[in-house]
């Protein structure tokens, strides 16, 4: 396939007709430039959406208990539903394969103090899995572990803001902190990129919280993440059946909206997913349209080139050029122009995105970029486009009759 002489011929032809080649290349380069920029912007919008939903696992489901609003099975209206430890076990038994992480939670408000510094914070009694649900990052020390849970250890993991306020940048690990009169050992400091509010929290083993506050097994709410292999429809179905089973378990009317509330992120995820798919689709159509316009442009110019070179092609034929060699010379020229110009356009597009990308953040476009997969795909498309653009003109060129071409003008 690789024929050095053929390439030499093609390069000579392109080189000797620079303006013409540049002109035909320009359309393609411009088309690809637009395509790259559009695609980058679409990516940027997607990134913004992703960020808007925070770094909380976006497959989470939160279950809140409430008061019943309907009488059911002889039970009164206004009954308070109380979750307990075994409700977590129940969900795991019933839906084990659909659950990724699950924790029960007890929320308390405490006044925390250390060496005279004092402030009010929220305490959350949780299971060790909660770290993955909240996507917390441990800055120092460790998170709560199973051992703490089993032994009801009096340990806490504090947020960065708590550490900053109470400890004056002093290392908090190993120090004892006073929470409403009881001493707890700080074993870890965490950060959360959702901001200060989520970092002004103190975590504690749920067993400890339950022991200290009332010595019962009451749970305020249950937070879980569903198996990420499920698609959003499956996740929505899971949420529905989870609600149904819990309502049965607590003898709540199935039409009661307040007694047990299930907040399923899959709903939002699905909506965002649909929107991004729609957006990508539109961008693809626009991009393809531009590309087709570019291809038509090249094709047009190639037809013109063939017309202009009719005489030359006639001479070549008279000297013994086979139709195949004429087709390949025109086709290769077209492919080469399209591929090179397209690549230049792509590079320019990526460059523009890099250059203006950071300043677009205020227009809801974050990190607009083009993936390397797209670059490879675009390159292949370009070569194909060049072949398509060149094929008709090349065919036409190969059918030129030398006598017509050589007729004395």
């Amino acid at each position, binding site marked *: 396939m690789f024929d050095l002489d053929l390439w030499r011929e093609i390069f000579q032809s392109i080189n000797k007709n620079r303006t013409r080649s540049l002109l035909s290349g320009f359309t393609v380069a411009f088309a690809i430039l637009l395509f790259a920029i559009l695609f980058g912007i679409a990516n940027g919008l997607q990134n913004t959406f992703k960020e808007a939903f925070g770094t909380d696992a976006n497959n989470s489901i939160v279950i809140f208990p409430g008061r019943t609003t309907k009488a059911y099975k002889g039970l009164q209206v206004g009954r308070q539903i109380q979750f307990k430890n075994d409700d977590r076990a129940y969900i795991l038994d019933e839906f084990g394969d659909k659950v990724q992480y699950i924790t029960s939670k007890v929320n308390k408000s405490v006044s925390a103090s250390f060496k005279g510094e004092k402030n009010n914070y929220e305490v959350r009694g949780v299971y060790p899995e909660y770290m993955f649900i909240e996507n917390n990052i441990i800055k120092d020390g460790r998170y709560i572990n199973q051992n703490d849970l089993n032994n009801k250890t009096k340990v806490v993991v504090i947020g960065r803001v708590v550490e900053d306020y109470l400890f004056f940048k002093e290392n908090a690990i190993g120090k004892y902190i006073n929470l409403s009169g009881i001493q707890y050992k700080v074993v870890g400091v965490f950060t959360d990129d959702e901001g200060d509010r989520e970092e002004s929290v103190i975590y504690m083993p749920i067993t400890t919280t339950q022991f200290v506050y009332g010595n019962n097994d009451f749970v305020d709410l249950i937070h879980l993440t569903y198996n990420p292999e499920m698609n959003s429809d499956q996740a929505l179905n899971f949420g529905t059946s989870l609600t149904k089973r819990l309502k049965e378990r607590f003898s709540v009317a199935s039409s009661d909206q307040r007694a047990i509330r299930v907040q399923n992120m899959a709903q939002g995820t699905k909506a965002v997913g649909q929107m991004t798919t729609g957006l990508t689709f539109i961008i693809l159509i626009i991009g393809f349209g531009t590309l087709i316009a570019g291809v038509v442009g090249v094709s047009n110019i190639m037809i013109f080139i063939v017309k202009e070179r009719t005489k030359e092609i006639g001479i070549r034929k008279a*000297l013994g050029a086979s139709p195949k060699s004429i087709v390949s010379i025109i086709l290769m020229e077209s492919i080469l122009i399209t591929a090179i110009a397209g690549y230049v356009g792509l590079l320019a597009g990526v460059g523009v995105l890099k250059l203006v990308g950071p300043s677009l953040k205020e227009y809801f476009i974050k990190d607009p970029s083009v993936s390397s997969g797209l670059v490879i795909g675009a390159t292949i498309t370009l070569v194909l486009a060049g072949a398509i653009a060149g094929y008709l003109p090349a065919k036409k060129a190969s059918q030129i009759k030398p006598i017509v071409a050589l007729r004395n003008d």
Partner: protein
Amino acid sequence: MLEIHQLHKSYPIGDSSLHVLKGIDLTVEDGEMVAIMGSSGSGKSTLLNIIGMLDEADSGDYILDGLPIKNLTEKKAAVYRNKFLGFIFQSFNLINYKNALENVALPLYYQGMKRKERQELAMFHLGKVGLTNWAHHLPKELSGGQNQRVAIARALAANPKLLLADEPTGALDMATSYEIMEFIQQLNDEGKTILIVTHEEDIANMCKRIVRLRDGVIMEDKKVNQVRVSQNV
């Protein structure tokens, strides 16, 4: 070398057709130098195109060096043209963005010869037409006579059996025309078979045989005493 029997050719013009060649019989032996004469529209160029396999006859036989030329595929015609025929045109028909050497080397490229080899051979032929020093000039940098000599070198490069010249001196002044004709006579002396289409009597008289066409038939076919250019000038 060349045998033609009852060759007919017509071109469609609108609804009717123009009968250009009305049964041509022609035989050319090895080493001949034949002038084909006739006024414009007599069919002389059509005949040359058919002989050059640039066009195909409607009916009749054409045998070139023992090979019947009929129903050729484009590919086969390209190979035959490359191997058997050398063309010299009135308007030179050089490729304008290629220099003299590259133009001469082009038929060798289509023969599949290696680059180095074909450049050497092309240089040799350029030397034969006396243009060694102009090898790297573009056609527009050369005079008409020089261009025609490049074209002749190109026609010779593939060492063809038959040289076809269509008004080779049509675009040249008298002195240059004679120069070119002298060169063509030399080639003939070396044994090349040459066919020249012309409408100029003096050019025709420099050949060994004159075939006169009128309205698509051969009016006259006679051997003449060749006028040698070298004596003439």
